[in-house]
């Protein structure tokens, strides 16, 4: 479980202290999959970097897996428990060989050496990068880098996983594959997952969605509730998914569907039924 209450955070910068987090609260229950949406610079990455103690709590409360994130003694346990895939994969690579890069975290946390090769291959296979073991991460395409960065964290098998815009450079197939890996981690292995995304469609399958704005949460709730509320989306700076947009445009023109669809399939089904 992650429980953050009233987090306030400023990066020290010249010209005053600008609050990147301004009273952010979030609760993620064990085994829950939570999506966080919000405009550029609203504090999403800053928030999640608190979960594994990459950033220090300046003000407010934060417990992760029962550990107080403010206590320095817990830092290394938190790093181990919370696996984080960063927004820019280049920030994640430590080795110039893909396999070594994926193995790095395992070695660092004292995983039995005999287990490592197997876990590395399994993680690379999971993200469709088997065969690239000996390459340098810097000799990969953008989407391939993103997949390798993902493998590095999956190999660690942490209880809590944080994905910061991990599908941004993937093709539609890759996006689907990675999302299905995330869904499996959630439904079959019971992992606790926080997923940051700018794509409202990716939030549809989350258990709960948080809408963030200017350093704090505007609302949270079931995806269907959050993503069909035009006014709330507008205030968050999000655009509605196409089916939601069409539902409202049709309604304005005098055609009301029985419910507001979230996916293209739902929309097509309802429209075909109407006629």
């Amino acid at each position, binding site marked *: 479980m992650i429980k953050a209450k009233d987090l306030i955070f400023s*990066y020290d*910068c*010249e*010209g005053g202290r600008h609050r990147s987090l301004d009273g952010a609260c979030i609760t993620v229950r064990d085994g829950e999959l939570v999506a966080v949406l*919000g*405009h*550029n*610079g609203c504090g999403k*990455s800053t928030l999640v970097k608190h979960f594994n103690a990459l950033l220090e709590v300046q003000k407010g409360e934060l417990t992760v897996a029962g550990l107080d994130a403010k206590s320095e003694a817990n830092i290394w346990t938190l790093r181990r428990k919370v696996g984080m895939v960063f*927004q*820019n994969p*280049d920030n994640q690579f430590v080795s110039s060989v893909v396999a070594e890069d994926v193995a790095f975290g395992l070695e660092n946390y004292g995983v039995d050496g005999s287990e490592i090769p197997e876990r590395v291959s399994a993680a690379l296979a999971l993200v469709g990068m088997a065969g690239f073991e*000996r*390459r340098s991460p810097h*000799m*990969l*395409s*953008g*989407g*391939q880098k993103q*997949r390798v960065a993902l493998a590095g964290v999956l190999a660690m098998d942490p209880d809590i996983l944080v994905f910061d*815009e991990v599908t*941004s*450079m*993937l*093709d*539609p*197939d*890759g*996006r689907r594959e990675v999302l299905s890996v995330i869904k499996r981690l959630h439904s079959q292995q019971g992992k606790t997952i926080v997923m940051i995304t*700018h794509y*409202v469609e990716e939030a549809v399958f989350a258990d709960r969605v948080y809408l963030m704005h200017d350093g704090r949460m505007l609302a949270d709730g079931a995806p269907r509730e959050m993503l069909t509320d035009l006014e709330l989306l507008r205030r968050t*700076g*999000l*655009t509605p998914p*196409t*089916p939601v*947009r*069409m539902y409202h*445009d*049709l309604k304005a*023109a005098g*055609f009301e569907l029985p419910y507001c669809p979230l996916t*293209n*399939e739902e*929309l*097509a*089904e309802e*429209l*075909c039924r*109407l*006629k």
Partner: protein
Amino acid sequence: MPIEVKNLSFTYSAGTPFETSALKNISLEIKNGEFIGVMGHTGCGKSTLIRALAGLLRPSEGSIVVDGSDINGRRYDRSKLRRKLGVVFQYPECQLFETTVEKDVAFGLKHSGLNKDEVTERVRWALEICGFDFEKIAKASPMGLSGGEKRRVAIAGVLAVKPEYLILDEPIAGLDPLGREAFLELITGLNADGMTIIMVSHNADCIGEYARRVLLLNGGELVGDGSPQELFSDVERMRSLHLGVSRSREIAWLLKKGGMDIPQDICSYDRLLPAVLAHLRGGDEHD
């Protein structure tokens, strides 16, 4: 004058175990004022093509001719290419290295012949059209920006030069939905004023709604060149290339499968909605 790509092939790490043939015999012509979208699966060679157009890779075979001159020719003046061609790379965060945002955006103007005030004005213009408040952002360090903010600063740096050709590798990745829309409207406006746009994107929506011509790459080969309407009409083929079509196109396709008679050349929402309404009203379809 156009860009002509003639029988272009490129192989990385030739002669090593990592040899990768990334571009295979690509030929195409880009005319002035076009708005081109480039699509293709992960690792199909899009960024390699961009690097080749930018003159950063020497073709293994073939040539790239910009405004009549081979850019890899021995006597070609590279600085000419830099002024004509603005390139935003896939992870442009790595392009930022100055101590302030203002200096970063001004970097490309060093040899532009503009005086100090003109440079400041140009930097202000570029940052403002990219959605920043100049006074607030100018003195900030690029390192201390969020992912999406860094991307917009990198874009501003390229726009400041007012290039003839604007080449963008996944420019909207990491932008929030309003930022995406604003950016696409911005380049549409620049395109209307004559700037040639070449944009790589996995986002079929932004290509379907904005580009007028699409290039499809698959395993280093050019396998499609046409309007979004033409290429997106074959949804199954797009899927077999690991690609998607725009959401509006997908909805039109699903509706047709469900028995509704909806035109199958619809790629954008502003055509989908009237078509659906016309159908619901039982009348003929008028766009």
